[in-house]
């Protein structure tokens, strides 16, 4: 247990980690503030004035339409009609439904409808931070030589690395829960003062809670990924380099390759698709290279596949487990010199 205590203390003695957490909180704070001021509460007056505005716009459009229709009908036959006449004369007159009151209202924050995507924002920001924290927590230990110092105190390398990993997961969970709590509170306040909290049934809360849990899972998983990569490379930079290579070169290159080879459902192989699947439970991908022969009788049915969060979750879990096994194995085998 003494090692656990040492590692727990070490985590927050690290300047970079402290700063990353601060930066994360600041970014979330800025976004929350912007959302707060960008939204407004809907009062009876704003609603009434928006409805009046919509009505007026509809009336104006209708009058315009009638005027154009009349003009078109008055064109002597044989003369060339103005281009708009084709559209006007087809009888497509403006619909009342095209002019809804909400289009003329300042935006308002409806917790029930909008909080879910804000959970994704929180998870994405904190995941990036978790990656760097995870990588640096072990990578900087290696590159500065303080890992080899530690190993002359605790020669059981598996337990040293395992303790570090456990401490990392523990702190990342704590950080995620605290920031997630603050984020929820901030946006709840936004909904209360600048929107509405209507319709929040226990079922809605539960669904949002599950999305939050998946967000937490994402943050921890990405943090562990950074940890595994930095352990393998014995340097923080290796993890960052791999991440950059995968995201930039890998994804761009892979997209080009998939399109060139006309691989069916190319989006299935790209990371953003899976991030989306994980956070919003399911995502549809389509096949742009469907065989035209499948379009029977001129009726082309779009070929789609759905990717669920379970699919994405198991693939990611598998990848992380493989990397961790490699990391622990090489920690055990490789010389420290």
């Amino acid at each position, binding site marked *: 247990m003494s090692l656990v205590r040492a590692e727990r203390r070490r985590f927050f003695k690290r300047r970079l980690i402290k700063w990353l957490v601060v930066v994360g909180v600041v970014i979330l704070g800025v976004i929350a503030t912007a959302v707060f001021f960008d939204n407004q509460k809907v009062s009876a007056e704003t609603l009434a004035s928006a409805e009046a505005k919509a009505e007026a716009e509809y009336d104006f459009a209708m009058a315009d339409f009638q005027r154009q229709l009349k003009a078109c009908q008055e064109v002597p036959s044989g003369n060339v009609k103005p281009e708009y006449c084709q559209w006007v004369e087809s009888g497509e007159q403006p619909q009342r439904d095209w002019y809804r009151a909400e289009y003329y209202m300042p935006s308002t924050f409806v917790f029930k409808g909008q909080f879910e995507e804000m959970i994704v924002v929180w998870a994405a920001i904190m995941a990036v931070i978790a990656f760097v924290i995870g990588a640096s927590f072990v990578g900087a230990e290696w590159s500065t030589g303080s890992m080899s110092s530690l190993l*002359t105190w605790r*020669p059981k390398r598996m337990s040293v690395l395992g303790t570090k990993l456990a401490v990392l997961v523990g702190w990342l969970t704590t950080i995620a829960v605290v920031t997630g709590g603050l984020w929820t509170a901030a946006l709840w306040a936004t909904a209360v003062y600048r929107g509405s909290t209507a319709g929040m049934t226990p079922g809605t809360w539960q669904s949002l809670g599950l999305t939050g849990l998946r967000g937490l899972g994402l943050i921890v998983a990405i943090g562990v990924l950074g940890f595994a990569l930095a352990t393998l490379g014995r340097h923080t930079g290796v993890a960052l380099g791999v991440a950059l290579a995968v995201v930039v070169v890998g994804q761009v290159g892979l997209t080009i390759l998939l399109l060139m080879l006309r691989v069916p459902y190319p989006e299935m192989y790209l990371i953003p698709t899976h991030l989306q699947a994980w956070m919003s439970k399911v995502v549809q991908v389509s096949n742009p290279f469907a065989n035209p022969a499948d379009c029977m009788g001129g009726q082309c049915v779009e070929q789609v596949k759905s990717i669920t969060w379970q699919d994405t979750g198991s693939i990611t879990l598998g990848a992380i487990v493989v990397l961790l096994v490699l990391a622990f194995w090489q920690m055990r085998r490789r010389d420290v010199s």
Partner: protein
Amino acid sequence: MTAVLEIQGLTKTYRARGGPRRALDGFEMYVEAGQVHGFLGPNGSGKTTTLRTLLGLIRPDSGDLRILGRPVPAELPQVIAHVGAIVESPQFFPHFSARDTLSLLADAGNLPQSRVDWALELVGLRDRAKERVKTYSLGMKQRLAVASALLKQPKLLILDEPANGLDPGGIREMRDMMATLSAGGMTVVLSSHILGEVQLICDSVTIISLGRRVAAGPVAEVLQAHSSGQVRVALETAADLSAAAQVLVAAGMQLQAHADHLMLTGVDKPALVARLLAERQLYVSELAPVHADLESVFLELTGTAPVPGQARQVDQSVKPDTAQDGVSA
């Protein structure tokens, strides 16, 4: 006396870019309890490799290693609490203060935090302990390293070039500290290139060259066994020097004549010289075996004495055919 450290047949081959590199080749070493043991060898001869292997940082190809009678690395976790070590200017986390660094190590080793101040005081870092290690001078970092090794109050202290970067005062303090520690029963293994220092503080030495032991034993014995057997002879009347030279050469001795003395080489019994000369009424005023110092013995044994006009490359040193050596432990 019991051996605190035993190494037999230690072999280590690094897989390096230029092909495999055999850093240790049947190396052996014994250190008895309570001694200060000097571990000497030219650059790249395998000292650090040996010490890293002992500490479980490097996996040897083969060899028997024991610390305090326990086989390592198998039972290293059980003995590590008694082994304090610094290996070749150890690095610490640059943004932590000395106190934080030691405090984290004390936690990792389950030691009371009160040891931290004790160790800082001992190495003279008390007043600077709150500053970041990054801002320390070389010698201050080295002092911190020594403090980290002493923190455990170990039975065996392994110091790889601890004097690296220390000021003269620091070197002397280190010397006194080692004397005190060893008087208190601690065994110290000290790798160093400062041979004058080693000669002053070490009870015994092991000399390594290209991964093999070339000499080992108490300092006095190593010096005697490998001193060149030179004897300096001066006469009461300097005018008789050439006559004396003739006598000695006739007796089959090798010598060099100087203005006021003769320098004999390969003399086993200096008394014989006095007797030979006395028989011819030549009276010696000085008959002194010239004691080699550790430096010249080291240079001779490892074959690393500088040759004028030549730049010696690392790895140009003596490699004994087998692991035999002059003095057994």
